[in-house]
């Protein structure tokens, strides 16, 4: 190899290294790990930058890795945390982080008007802008009497027509743990066995459930409000219902976003400012408009098409009760439902 080739290669390497080793060491920054969808969260973080002048360094999760990336990273970084704030899109992993000593309590003044049910009693995490689990169905395949209950997934008339996301991951795993908490272990296990017998398809993610229903590969499925709303906004032939809303039924699972401060974080003051910002009615309003996330604050004004959380009958179990059932539910699913 000629000298000029070596020089050329060294030059390329040098340029690459110089570029990549540029790490921003700005003082006025806040590092946030974001499990919420990037397209919805990024504009909000940009707005925070604009209002406060604090530079936001965000790290987003992807659908494929679920929260495996961010939560495992927070756990592994326990000795030298990099994140100041974790914006989670659900509650179970927030409770897990609290139990494992990753979080620092912070009672934001902006959390006062959020109902107690949606926040940690010791201020380790605070909920805002919630999603709910919904049954999404294809309006071309099901023209009348759509399924309205989780138990409809076991109805023989829908055999092989329904799908759910992998029940070991994401909000579907929380939903099944909630069913264990609400129905009791035996009834929940029976429900899962019957779902399996009824050939309920297991697809990769909630967004895949939406896509399968949109194209009619599944007639209906279980997903989150934001995924369902994406399809409706694009005028796909789908609609959705909140499951189990009748008096004698168990109700639906409401999943708020949660925000929390990381213990021993590098910029705690900026972290608190970001938490305060995320808990303003303006952020809830924005999330309601772009992602159909339902506000938890009464003071938040939202368009008519966004339902109020109070209008949905929710499952009568606390998030801590659901958390206690996560292991037993996941174990059963892994060994009996998915095997």
């Amino acid at each position, binding site marked *: *190899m000629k000298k000029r080739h070596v020089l050329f*290669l060294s030059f*390329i*390497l040098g*340029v*690459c290294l110089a*570029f*990549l*080793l540029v*790490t*921003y060491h700005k003082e006025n920054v806040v*590092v*946030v*790990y974001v499990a919420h*969808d*990037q*397209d919805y969260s990024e504009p909000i973080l940009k707005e925070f930058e604009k209002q406060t002048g604090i530079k936001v*360094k965000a*790290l*987003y*999760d*992807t*659908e*494929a*890795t*679920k*929260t*495996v*990336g961010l939560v*495992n*990273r927070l*756990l*592994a*970084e*326990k*000795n*030298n945390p*990099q994140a100041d704030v974790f914006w989670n899109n659900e509650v179970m992993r927030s409770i*897990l982080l609290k139990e494992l000593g990753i979080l620092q309590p912070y009672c934001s003044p902006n959390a006062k008007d959020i109902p107690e049910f949606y926040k940690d009693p010791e201020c380790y995490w605070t909920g805002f802008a919630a999603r709910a689990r919904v049954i999404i169905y294809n309006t071309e395949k099901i023209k009348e009497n759509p399924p309205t209950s989780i138990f409809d997934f076991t109805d023989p008339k829908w055999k092989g027509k329904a799908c759910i996301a*992998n029940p*070991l*991951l994401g909000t579907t795993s929380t939903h099944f743990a909630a069913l264990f908490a609400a129905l009791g272990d035996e009834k929940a296990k029976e429900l899962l066995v019957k779902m399996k017998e009824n050939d309920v398809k*297991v*697809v*990769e*993610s909630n*967004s895949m459930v939406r*896509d399968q229903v*949109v*194209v*009619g*590969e599944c007639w209906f499925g279980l997903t989150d409000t934001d995924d369902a709303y*994406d*399809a409706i906004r*694009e005028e796909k032939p789908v609609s959705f219902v909140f499951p189990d809303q009748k008096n004698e039924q168990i109700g639906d699972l409401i999943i708020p976003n949660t925000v929390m401060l990381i213990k021993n974080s590098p910029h705690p003051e900026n972290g608190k400012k970001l938490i305060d910002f995320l808990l303003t009615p303006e952020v809830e309003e924005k999330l309601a408009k772009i992602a159909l996330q339902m506000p938890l604050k009464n003071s938040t004004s939202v368009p008519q098409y966004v339902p109020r959380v109070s209008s949905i009958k929710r499952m009568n179990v606390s998030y801590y009760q659901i958390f206690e059932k996560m*292991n037993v539910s*996941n174990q059963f699913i*892994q*060994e009996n439902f*998915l095997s």
Partner: protein
Amino acid sequence: MESRTIKASLIILIALLLVLPLTYFFLQFIPQRIDYQVLIFLYEFVKFVYNKRILKVFAKTFFLGVSVSLFSLIVGFIPAYFLEFRSFRLKNFIRASLFIPFLIPPYLFVFSWLGFLGKRGLFSQIHFLNLSIDIYNPLALIFFLSLSFFPVSMLFISLGFRNITKKILNPIKIFNEKGFWKITLLLLKPYLLISFFVTLSLFFSEYIVPSYLRINTYQSEIFVQLATFYDVRKASFLTLPLVIFSLIVAILSFKVCKIKTEIPDKKFVPPHLIRREKVFFYSFTVIVLVLSLIIPLSVFLAESKLDVLNPLLETKGIFFTSVLFSTLISFSTTFLSNVILFYLRSSQKFVNFLLFFTLLMPTPVLGVVLTTFFSAIKLNGTVLPLIDGYVIKFLPFSLLFMMPEYGKVTKSLESSIRIFSRGSLISFFKIVLPIVKEGFFFSLITIFILCFGEASLAQLLLPPGLQTISLRMETLLHYGNYQAVASLSLSTVFIPLALYSLYALFKGVKR
């Protein structure tokens, strides 16, 4: 620079890059004192890993992996043979076209096929026989991944054919067809086996595609331990059989690569295709190209609505970061593997044993290992963990690619270098690298592509504020923004292709 100094520096580098993080991590799980805790640990390990369900999943995954590797090898072998042993028009064009499918990350490859065969797909619109094609099964997994990985086998076997050209010329004349194949396959053995190991390793790195196709694999079992139970210990338990298998590959690859290869014979002029060969080769190539390239690209074109530029401009910063990062990793990894192979040849078995440790290690586990280690030494949050992660991940691949090439650097050549050259490093650059340059470029390109499409290690190790194009594409896929995903997929295929064409043009003009 003195050879001894370089050797010592290399050993220190390997220790810092690889041995230290892995040792630090696994020591956390192993009992510190030899007492009853060791027995409890062993009991827990055996009970967890060797249960019927896990063994069943492991056996199924292993079978799928071997099938994918074998099919890739077969599909890659046929064009490689014709490309090296026969003359025909548009040879380089066909070679380049057959390599393009590897530029499409496997999850996007499957995404395109789902777009073609699925209910919203093109096929469902045009087929009139009302055929119901179920692609959610293990056969589809073998089909898709074989089509996605075969270009690596093809180019690598091509490299092997080039290195044995001189040797088989005479046997072709002397023996009949049977004798020819016997000798060829024997001489090609290192390339065939290493190609098999590489595709097997690529298969074990894949967990998104099996979950797309609703197939539970061993990789998914490990992923679930991290994503559902957040149990790093159990994920590490499950990783152990893969580590053992990686070490077996290390030993085997060392053995097969002991076979000496030759410096290519440039004088060899291949004969033209005869009619029978023409029909077979062109039909085969057309079928493979339709399945692995035309269908995915047509789906991407249709989904992108021919708007390639806007999504690319929107993500230009991310794209630029990915290109630079992949360039850095491919250069440093390939260079490092060459230096290791040249300077640590005498202790190659031991070095392989150390470096192949991570060949089949699932990337989420490797990511957690490195985050834990770099967090302990307060260097997390920089680009160093990610650079280290990619070097660790791809170094065994580069070593595998380069090992048969170093069969050309014989003992006598080494002695001559030692006697006549001015310095050890200069002789490495001036004499050795030109001999192995084809393998060097092959490794460079392949590592670049693997790095460009990688997402799960990046997710765990990327410093906050940065993003790669693979992560962005996965996010867009989740939103159902298929138009942007398809446009970016086209960009990831055509930009390297344009660069390659420029290079080819430049090379052609120079000649």
